[in-house]
Structure formats: structure tokens, C-alpha cells
């Protein structure tokens, strides 16, 4: 059966297990900085980004084009394209800092321990080799399977991602498959070597809407079956609502808000998040209000300066917003926000303050308020995002 191929954990519910054992996160990004030095200026694409992913957890990263989502993903894989450079921060994967291990180690992480689903399925397969060759390559590289064994397993994988007649189709060239099928093949390739983490960078942008849903369900299914951690990069809030446990809202290379998905949609607190949610077209809205937009353009950050990057477009921006960078602080269980003037006062201010007392990152998706505080080390408060700050809470 298909499920046997991808199962790494016993049949107990993977998600429940992950919740029960908080432990160390699978992936923790701390204070990541990526910049692109160009001839006359430098673009600071990511500035002090941080997030955590646990096994079995699906984290969505949302933001407009150019907010640094994809750059963050490529920084995790250490594949930032020239002339971009990671200038600071840590990417801890199972305790190892991926930014500091050797090239050879990194190669075994790529594809072996972290699977990547790239944006465009139509061009991400080598046009001159068959599907079988793609599978043989990664399986030989990371698992050490022989050609015949690899082929056998590849056929199983193809079947498990729902490609009909896998034993025939596997010998075909990529251009003979449809876009949706190619994305399925790519997903099968990404999980072929049983990675612990799956990064999907806008996996559905190139596909039509009916296929999008199928592909996202396929990813969900794989994540559940193999207790994978997953990062879903998207600009589509609808996708986030249905297919993520937790959401990180990114703007100008920073985290604006991070919260469990229900919390984010129920009680968005950052003006930017509120704006994004307002942009989602609703057919029930008045005709003139179906399409709304946040006025202005997202900035291309070429100068490092203090102040909230969203301030120029924010209707609530005060004087302080332009002069001081707001720190990322908890305002509720698992709910973090970087804003001087949140849209809504936190309901559980007490619990939030407790959680902020020294937590290094974000608590898990379903962590109870008390748990959040327990996670944090008793060490000095570390603010991985921007300047250290006294917990300023309304």
C-alpha cells in the first residue's frame, strides 16, 4: 500500500504525538539576515527573521512579493543565489547550525533531510532525462539504493502521490506529464529520501485552482503520515487557512505577526495582517468593497534604519513607529506581534507577559498558555528580532 512507503513513525497519530512531546523544535531560525550587495546599493532582503517548526507541524509563511519569503527558504537550504549572502543568524536543524556545517554535510541535508518543493513544477524537472532517472539519482545519493531497488521504490512513491500507471509513466520524459502530475512527481521526489522537513515554496502558483487543492491535500497527507515538519510559503491566505497549523506573517524581511492559524484569523492584531485579511475578496461584500488593497508599495529595503517597515503604509502609525523598531513580543498564547500599536488589546495579557519572560521562540501550535512560559529558558531575555527591549505590552 501507498501509506507503507512513506510511514516512518508507527501508526499512532503523528500530530498528537508532536503535541504531546514539545521537545526541541525540528527547525529553528534565529535572527536570520540576508542581504544582496549590488553595485550601488545593498538590498536587505531578510532582517532578523525567526521562526520555529516542530515535527508534524505545518507552518505557513505569508507575505507580499518581495517580502523575503523565498529568500528565507533558500537561506535554510543555503542556496541563496548570487550575489546574495547570509550575513547573520542561525538556522538550527535538529540542533545543528546549517549555516556552519561543511558543504558535503549540507549536501546530505538537502534532499536527504530537508525536502524542497520548488515553485514552478513545469521547469523544475530536467527536460532531457526521464522521471526514473530523477528518482534513481536522489535515492542513490541519499539512501544508497541500487538502480533496480531505486526504480521499485520510485514506482511506489509515484503511486503514493496518485499518479496512474506509475510503472509506465516513470520511464517518460517530463514534458509528457501535465503540470499537476509534474508537481506530484516533484513532491514525490522531495519526500523520496524520507526527509524530516518539507519546504514548499509557493507549490501551487503555476497550477490551476482545481489542481491546487489536490496538491495541497497531498502535501497535508504526506506531512501527517510521516510526521514531517513543513513550511508552506505562499501569498494566499486561503491556502494558509486550510493547510497550516501556524502562520508567520512576513513584511520587508521581518516577522510582523506569528500565531496559530485560528487565532490569526479570529484576532489579527498587526495592522498589516488586518490589511492583508481585508484584501481577500469576499463576494458577500458590497460591490465597491469586494477588492480592497493596502495603499502603497512594499518597500525594497536598501537602508537599515530604525522604525517599523510598515509604518509608511499603516493608517495607525504614530510618531514612534517611524523612529523605533517595534520588538517581536508575545501578546497571547503562541501569538507574537511586532507593533507599537496593535489593532486589538490582548485578551490574555497575563499569560502573554509570562510567555514573554524569556521564551526564545514561538510556542507550538496548540501549546497551552502555561506551556509557553515553561518552554522559555530562564536565561536573560533574548529578543532574536531586532534590538532587545523591555516587554512593552499595552
Amino acid at each position, binding site marked *: 500500500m501507498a501509506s507503507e512507503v512513506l510511514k516512518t513513525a508507527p501508526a499512532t497519530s503523528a500530530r498528537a504525538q508532536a503535541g504531546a512531546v514539545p521537545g526541541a523544535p525540528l527547525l529553528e531560525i534565529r535572527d536570520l539576515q540576508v542581504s544582496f550587495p549590488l553595485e550601488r546599493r545593498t538590498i536587505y532582503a531578510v532582517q532578523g527573521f525567526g521562526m520555529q517548526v516542530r515535527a508534524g507541524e505545518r507552518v505557513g509563511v505569508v507575505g507580499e512579493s518581495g517580502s523575503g519569503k523565498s529568500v528565507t527558504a533558500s537561506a535554510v*537550504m543555503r*542556496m541563496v*543565489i*548570487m550575489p546574495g549572502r547570509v550575513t547573520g543568524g542561525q538556522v538550527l536543524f535538529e540542533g545543528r547550525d546549517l549555516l556552519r556545517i561543511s558543504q558535503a554535510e549540507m*549536501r*546530505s*541535508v*538537502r*534532499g*536527504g533531510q530537508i525536502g*524542497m518543493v*520548488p*515553485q*514552478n513544477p513545469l*521547469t*523544475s*524537472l*530536467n*527536460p*532531457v*532525462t*526521464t522521471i526514473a532517472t530523477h528518482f534513481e*539519482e*536522489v535515492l542513490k*545519493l*541519499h539512501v544508497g539504493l541500487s538502480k533496480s531497488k531505486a526504480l521499485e521504490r520510485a514506482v511506489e512513491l509515484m503511486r503514493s502521490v496518485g499518479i496512474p500507471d506509475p510503472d509506465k509513466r516513470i520511464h517518460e*520524459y517530463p514534458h509528457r506529464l501535465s503540470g499537476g502530475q509534474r508537481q506530484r512527481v*516533484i513532491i514525490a*521526489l*522531495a519526500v523520496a529520501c524520507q526527509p524530516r522537513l518539507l519546504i514548499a515554496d509557493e507549490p501551487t502558483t503555476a497550477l490551476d485552482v482545481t489542481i491546487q487543492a489536490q496538491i495541497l491535500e497531498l502535501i497535508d497527507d504526506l506531512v501527517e503520515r510521516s510526521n514531517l515538519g513543513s513550511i508552506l510559503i505562499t501569498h494566499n491566505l486561503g491556502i494558509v487557512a486550510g493547510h497550516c497549523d501556524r502562520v508567520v506573517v512576513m513584511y520587508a524581511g521581518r516577522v510582523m505577526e506569528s500565531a496559530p492559524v485560528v487565532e490569526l484569523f479570529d484576532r489579527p492584531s498587526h495592522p498589516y495582517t488586518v490589511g492583508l485579511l481585508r484584501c481577500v475578496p469576499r463576494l458577500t461584500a458590497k460591490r465597491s468593497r469586494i477588492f480592497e488593497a493596502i495603499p502603497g508599495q512594499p518597500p525594497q529595503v536598501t537602508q537599515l534604519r530604525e522604525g517599523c517597515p510598515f509604518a509608511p503604509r499603516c493608517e495607525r502609525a504614530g510618531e514612534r513607529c517611524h523612529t523605533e523598531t517595534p520588538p517581536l513580543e508575545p501578546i497571547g498564547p503562541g501569538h507574537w506581534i511586532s507593533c507599537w500599536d496593535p489593532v486589538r488589546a490582548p485578551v490574555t495579557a497575563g499569560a502573554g507577559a509570562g510567555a514573554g519572560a524569556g521564551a526564545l521562540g514561538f510556542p507550538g501550535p496548540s501549546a497551552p498558555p502555561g506551556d509557553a512560559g515553561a518552554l522559555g529558558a530562564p536565561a536573560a531575555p533574548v529578543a532574536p528580532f531586532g534590538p532587545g527591549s523591555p516587554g512593552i505590552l499595552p
Partner: protein
Amino acid sequence: MTTVPLPAAPTVAVARSSGSFWHAAWYRYRRNQLALVAGALVLLILLVGLLAPYIAPYNDAGEDLTSVLAGASWHHLLGTDNLGRDTLTRAIWGDRTSMTIALGAPLIGLAIGMPMGIIAGWFGGIFDWVTLRLFELFQMVPTILAALLFVTVFGVSVWKLALFIGITLWVGFGRLARAQYIALRDRDFVQAARAAGVPTWRIILVHIMPNAVGPIIVYFVQQVPYVIFTAAGFSLLGFGVQDPLADWGKMINDSVSYLPLDPLLVLVPIGCIGLACLSFSFMGDGLRDALDPTSR
């Protein structure tokens, strides 16, 4: 093929070409009749050169002073030269020599240029800068002059001649390989291969190379007529292969003074050179359209 040959539109061709890139390329090549004929002629020329010792009617260096400048006859189908050597035999052996140089020189150019171009294109940065300056340096020197210098210094043989001309060809191959690798370097499937942990050498050789060879093959074939001309020019100048070896260019050089007595002596090698050049050129055109369909 079992399918009925329709007066097919190009779109049909793409849709019906099954299997790999090479199948599709062959399908496109087949539809170009001129290229098909040229390809057949190229094969014939190569075959004749390969089988020269078996098919030539006389000994290639065999002089027969009793039948000097004999003209075409049943004994000597294309006549004899001033030393009584059979012209057909000379032309067949000349084929062998000319083709050795015509294919050898681009091969040498490819062997030098391609690795340099790949390194420059893939790694970029300082590698690219140095290689580009090398390209410029070599392009400054006129081909004929450089090769003549080599011939004067190192002497001449068939392989040396191929090497000297080849050295002057590497820049073209280098530039082309560099351009291909720069264009393919950031393509999605290459990034995907990197994300799957494929080692760099494997990406360069296994993932990019097959995608890059099309234009390089085309360029190779297009270089052949150029080399035939160059080698003939060398022979004409007396810097080419030496007696007793035959070479089309040398045959012209040897017989120019006997042109009034027997025009065949000059027309045969000229015809051979012309035929070979045209065949390779049209084959190159066909290959370009077949392997690089976007270039039209």
C-alpha cells in the same frame, strides 16, 4: 514509422514526436530534405576517407612516369597528375587527410574550449573574468598568422596541422559553452537538483551538459567547412601536409600549373572541397533547426 506521412504542420510534428529530446530532434531533422541529403553526403565522405586503403584503385604514392598527365581514361577514371599518380586515388586519400584535419581541429578546439567555458560560466566571478580576458587575447591574433607561426616553429604533419588549427578554434567553443552554462545555471531544474543535494560535478556533467550540447554540436559541424578551407589554404601556401601525403588543397597547389593541359586535375579537388563544405554547412543548418528549435 508506421504512421502515414501527412503533409504535416510543425505543430503536429511536436505533438507526435515521442520520447526524448533526441527523438524529437531527429523528427525535425528528417523533415528537412536538404539537410537529409547533406547528412548522407557527409556520411559518404567520411566513409570514403575511412575506407581509402580498400577502395582506392591505385597506390596513393605510386608514381607512374609512363602515364604522366594521361587524362581521363578507363585506366585512370579522372586522369593522372604530373608524376603519373592517379587523380581518383589522390582524391580518395586526400579525403582521408582533409577529414582528419577537418574533424580533428574542431575536436581539439572543443577539448580546450569547452572545459574553460564551463568553468567560466558555472563558477563565474574571477574565473569568468580571467577566461574572458584569455578569449580576447586569443581573438586578437589572426588565425592564419598564428597557425603559420606554429607550422614554421614545430614543422608539420596531419595531426600537428589539426592541432594548430584547433588551437585557434577553442575561443569559439569556449564562448559558446560559457554562454550555455550561464543561461542554464539558474534554471529551475538546476536549482531543484541542488536542492536535492546533487553534487556540483554531477550537476555540471549530468544535468546541464545534455541540455547544452545542442548548440555546441551545431557549432562543431559549422566549423568543419571553415577548417577544410583553412587547411586547403595552408596547403596552397605550401605550409600544409607534405608529399607523399595527399590533401585536396595540396592537389590544387600541385596541379595549378598544369591546368591548361588537364583541367580535371584542379576541378576534382575543387569539387571535393566544395561538396564537403556544402554538405557540412547544410547539415549544420539542419542540425541547428533540429537541436535548437527556438533559434529560427
